[in-house]
């Protein structure tokens, strides 16, 4: 086993079978270890891991409100500092809605004040816990209950918000994107973020069978395809320098990723859907150019 054997996010949690977010938390906690305190905003991760009076967490874990996981993490870090504790790590966690939309203000404050906290965003690209509403992290054209395709619509009209760039623009020393399909890379990045003294931000792409419309067994394959098509780019940014980009030998067409998910199925059925597929291919192509993805 290359990864830490110990589990800090335990079995018995109530996530759907094949949940990407549950695997993301399990891996992130392997990187964090036992001398840590975690916060968690309202959302699937919180609900599935804390059915009263049980907890899936082996470390002290606190449910914040939906919007203030980063503020809670900031306060815990300040408290530890005041106690002279320089070893216990603080990990603030949130879903994409809790991070890039409603919690962005408290996150921005945490990053601005450069608290020694690792923020982990579990990105399943919508508000899943309340029934699949679109968030700022929902990709272009995805169908959600609040961005349904129809005669006048191809689904979500907006681009996926680039929260990694927003976090990096605060001048913090490390941001990284990760994927559950690449566990060692994910664990390395969270470890690195934890080791840095100061605020860090890691966003993990965590496919959701229930919200994206595919069978639970395909979760890893879909996460991998997001990377292999260039729609989710794996990189780290240390002190402003982009590093360890996962370069692609043979970048796959975006259709290979999209066609496996019901949230994009209208693109393959609707008239003019191919024009939309072209637009999504352009997003991947622009990513490839920006990060020199192609080998």
């Amino acid at each position, binding site marked *: *086993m290359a990864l830490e054997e110990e589990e800090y996010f335990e*079995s*018995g949690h109530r996530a759907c079978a094949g949940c990407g977010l549950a695997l993301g938390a399990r891996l992130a906690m392997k990187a964090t270890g036992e001398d840590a305190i975690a916060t968690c905003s309202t959302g699937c991760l919180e609900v599935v891991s804390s059915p009263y009076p049980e907890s899936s967490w*082996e470390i002290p874990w606190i449910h914040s409100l939906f919007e203030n996981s980063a503020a809670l993490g900031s306060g815990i870090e300040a408290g530890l500092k005041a106690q002279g504790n320089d070893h216990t790590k603080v990990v603030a966690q949130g879903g994409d809605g809790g991070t890039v939309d409603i919690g962005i203000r408290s996150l921005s404050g945490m990053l601005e004040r450069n608290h020694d906290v690792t923020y982990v965003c579990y990105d399943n690209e919508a508000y899943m816990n309340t029934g699949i509403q679109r968030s700022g992290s929902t990709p272009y054209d995805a169908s959600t209950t609040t961005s349904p395709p129809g005669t006048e619509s191809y689904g979500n009209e907006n681009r996926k918000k680039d929260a990694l760039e927003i976090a990096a623009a605060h001048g913090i020393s490390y941001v990284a994107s990760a994927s559950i399909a690449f566990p060692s890379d994910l664990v390395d990045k969270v470890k690195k973020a934890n080791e840095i003294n100061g605020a860090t931000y890691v966003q993990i792409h965590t496919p959701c069978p229930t919200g994206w419309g595919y*069978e*639970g067994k395909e979760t*890893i394959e879909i996460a991998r395809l997001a990377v292999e098509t260039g729609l989710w780019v794996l990189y780290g940014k240390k002190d402003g320098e982009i590093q360890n980009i996962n370069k692609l030998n043979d970048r796959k067409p975006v259709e290979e990723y999209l066609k496996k998910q019901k949230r994009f199925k209208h693109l393959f059925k609707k008239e003019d859907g191919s024009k939309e597929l072209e637009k999504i291919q352009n997003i991947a192509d622009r990513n490839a150019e920006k990060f020199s993805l192609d080998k």
Partner: protein
Amino acid sequence: MVNFAGIAEPGSTKNYKTGTWRTYRPVVDFDKCIGCAKCWEYCPEGCIIELEVDGKEVYETDLDYCKGCGICSEECPVGAIEMELEEED
């Protein structure tokens, strides 16, 4: 002392056996298994365990928690895991 609501035993969801959710059961062919631990890495339940069978390191599912998602079977590089329909006793 302030009494906080909801202080729970660490890791206590283990008291709840999610294995009852399962429709398909992963069955590992130990002859085929090469002990690579990919199934263990990718299991969202963290319910795959290492064991030794005839002096060989292999992996198997803890059926108390396995929800039968099938990820391990999909990701096993040598096709050692079959998903078999659970039958009522």
